[in-house]
C-alpha cells in the first residue's frame, strides 16, 4: 500500500539539543495514525518538518510520495495548528472562503463544502458570526474545517480535540474514521490516551525517538498494561533501560 508519510532516520538538533533522534515513522494511505508523546518529545518539530517549514539535519521524509518541501504536496495537505489560526474580525464563512481561494477552489465549491463541513461540526447556524464572538471550542471546530476545506489527501492535526466537549469529540473521531474510508490519511497528535484507541495505529514518541508503534491492542499486549497511560509509562521505561 502507498505510504502517505514515510520518515527514515530523521534527526534534528536545536542549539546542540537533540529534538529528533533518528526517528522512523510511516503512515499508510487511509490510515488514522495517532502520535502520542509528552510535551517536548518532538511532536511539533516532526510536524514542522513534515509541513516543510524546517529541514531535518539528517534522514529522509517523503509525503504523499514526494520529497519535501514540494509545492504539489502543499495543495493536498491539510494542517490544523495548535493555535486557533483564524482571522478574528472575519466571519466563519469569510475565513473559509479566503483559505479556499488559496487552494484555487471555485467559489461555489468552497461554499458548498463549507456548508457541509460546518454541519458536521454543528456550526451551520454561526457561519456569518465573526470568529471573535465564538467560544474556544467553536474556534477549534472552525479551524478543523479550514484544514479540510480543500479535500486534502493527508490531514495533519495538532491536538485537534483540545477544548471540545466529549459528545462532539466522539462525533469528530467517528468522522475521522469515515474519512479514512475515502482513502484519506490522518496524522493526529493528542494527549488524550483514550482517543488513541480509535486510531488504526499509534506511535509513542519519547525524547525524539519513536519508542513503540503498532495497533492499539498490540501495544497494550506488548506492554502488558491495562490502560494506555500505563502502557506508555511501561514502554518508555523499557526504552530507557535498553540503550539504543
Amino acid at each position, binding site marked *: 500500500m502507498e505510504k502517505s508519510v514515510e520518515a527514515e532516520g530523521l534527526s534534528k538538533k536545536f542549539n546542540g539539543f537533540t529534538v529528533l533522534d533518528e526517528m522512523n515513522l510511516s503512515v499508510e494511505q487511509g490510515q488514522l495514525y495517532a502520535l502520542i508523546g509528552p510535551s517536548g518529545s518532538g511532536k511539533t518539530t516532526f510536524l514542522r518538518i513534515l*509541513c516543510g517549514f524546517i529541514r531535518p539535519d539528517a534522514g529522509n521524509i517523503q509525503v504523499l510520495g514526494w520529497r519535501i518541501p514540494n509545492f504539489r504536496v502543499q495543495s493536498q495537505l491539510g494542517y490544523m495548528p495548535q*493555535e486557533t*489560526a*483564524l482571522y478574528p*474580525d472575519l466571519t466563519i464563512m469569510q475565513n473559509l472562503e479566503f483559505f479556499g*481561494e*488559496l487552494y484555487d477552489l471555485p467559489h461555489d465549491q468552497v461554499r458548498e463544502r463549507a456548508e457541509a463541513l460546518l454541519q458536521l461540526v454543528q456550526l451551520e447556524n454561526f457561519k456569518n458570526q465573526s470568529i471573535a464572538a465564538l467560544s474556544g471550542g467553536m474556534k477549534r471546530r472552525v479551524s478543523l474545517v479550514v484544514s479540510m476545506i480543500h479535500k486534502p489527501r493527508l490531514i495533519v492535526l495538532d491536538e485537534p480535540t483540545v477544548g471540545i466537549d466529549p459528545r462532539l469529540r466522539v462525533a469528530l473521531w467517528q468522522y475521522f474514521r469515515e474519512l479514512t474510508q475515502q482513502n484519506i490519511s490522518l496524522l493526529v497528535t493528542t494527549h488524550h490516551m483514550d482517543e488513541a484507541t480509535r486510531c488504526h495505529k499509534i506511535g509513542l514518541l519519547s525524547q525524539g525517538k519513536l519508542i513503540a508503534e503498532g495497533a492499539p491492542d498490540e501495544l497494550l499486549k506488548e506492554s502488558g498494561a491495562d490502560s494506555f497511560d500505563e502502557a506508555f509509562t511501561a514502554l518508555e521505561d523499557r526504552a530507557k533501560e535498553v540503550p539504543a
Partner: protein
Amino acid sequence: MKSWSISKNVFRRIRRDPRTLILVVLTPLFFILLYGISFSSTPKGLKLIVVNQDTGQASIRTEQVGRVNVPLNLGKKLIENLDHDVFTIVVRDDPDEARREVEMGEAWGALLLPPYFSNFLVSEALRRSGPREIDYNGQTINALPPLPPVNENNPPQPPTLILDNSNPVIAAGVYPAISKAFTGLIYEDESTLIDSSLMAIQPVYEKPITALDYTAPGVIGFAITLISIMLTSISIVRERTSGTLTRLLIAPVRAWEVSVGYMLAFLLIALFQAAELLLTSFYLFGIRFNGNPIWVFLIILIFSIGLQGVATLISTLAKNEFQAMQFILVILIPSIMLSGVFWPVETMPSSIQPIAWLNPLTHANAALRNVMLRGWDLSRIIPELSVLIGFAILMLILSIQSMKRQADTV
C-alpha cells in the same frame, strides 16, 4: 492571483476592524492637521514695545527756498506700517523701561524711535538717492541731500531695535517684519532706499515659499513612512502570532505571493493616505503645489514599496507586536532626524551627511520637494527616483527572502 486574494483579505479585515480602520483613515488627517495648525512659518502675536520720541519734524535743505521744516510724522507712520498680525504692539514712554522689559523676557523686542527720527530717516534717504523732487505746500521743490554734519560729536540718532534673540526662529522673524514696515515710508515707489539691504533680490520662484511649504513635502513623506511601516509590520506579526501565516504558507502559495499580496494592499492604503495628506495640506493650509500630482504619487508609490519591505523585515525580527514597535522606533527616529525633513542635510555635520544620503527618506523628501515646490518634471527627478527604485528592488528581494524565513519560525 493568490496575491490579490491576500490583498483583498487584508482589506476585508481592515473594514471589519474599527480600530485599524481609524488608524488607516484618520491618522494621516490627524497628523497633517496637527502639523498645519502648530507649524506656522510666520510668528504671530509677538509682543513688541514701541517708544516713539519722534517730534515728527524733518528739516530739509531745498534748492528753491532754503531749509524748510516738514511735518512728516514718520515715527507714527512706521508704527502704523508694522504688521499687526505679527506684532502685539505696546507703547511705552521710557526707553530704559522698554529695554528692561525685553531683558526680563516680557517682550520679544523694543523699537526705540529717537526724537529726530523723521529727520534722520529723510536725511538718510536723500543721502542715498541724491536730490529729489518733493511736494511742499502745493509746489514742487527740489530737496537736497544733507551736508556732512558739522558737529561730529552729536550725530543724529538712528532708531534702535532691542531684540531678544534667545529664540533664533522668532528673532529671525522679527527683524524682517520690522524692516518691511520701513518700505514705502517716504517714497511709495522705492523699497530699497531705507531698507537695510541695498541688494536687489531676484527670487527664482515667484511667490514666496514659506517654511510651512518647505517642510510639508517632508512631513508627508514622514507620515507615509511612519504609518505604513507600523501598519504593515504589525499586521504581519499579528498574522504570524495568531497562526494564520502558518496556514498561508502551508497552502500552495509561494512566499513571494504572500509578500506581494501584502505589499499590494498596503501600497493602495499608502496612496490613499498620500491623497488625504496632499488634499488636506493643499486645501486647508494652502501648501504650495507647483508640480504635477502624478509624479508625487509615483514617488510615494516607489518609496512605499521599499517601506513595505522594511516592514516585512521588521516583522521577521520581532517575536511579537511589542517588539515590532521597538524596532519601528529604533529605525524611524534616526531616519526622520537624518532625512532633511526639518533641516537640510547640508547643515548636518560632514561626518553624519553620508548616513543621511544613505537614508531613502532623504531622497523621497528631495524628490517630493522638487516636484511640489519647484514644479519639476519627471525628467528632473530621475536621480532621486533611481535611488528610490534601487531601495524598492532591494527591499522587495529581502522581504521575499524574509517571508520564506517566517515559514521557518512559525
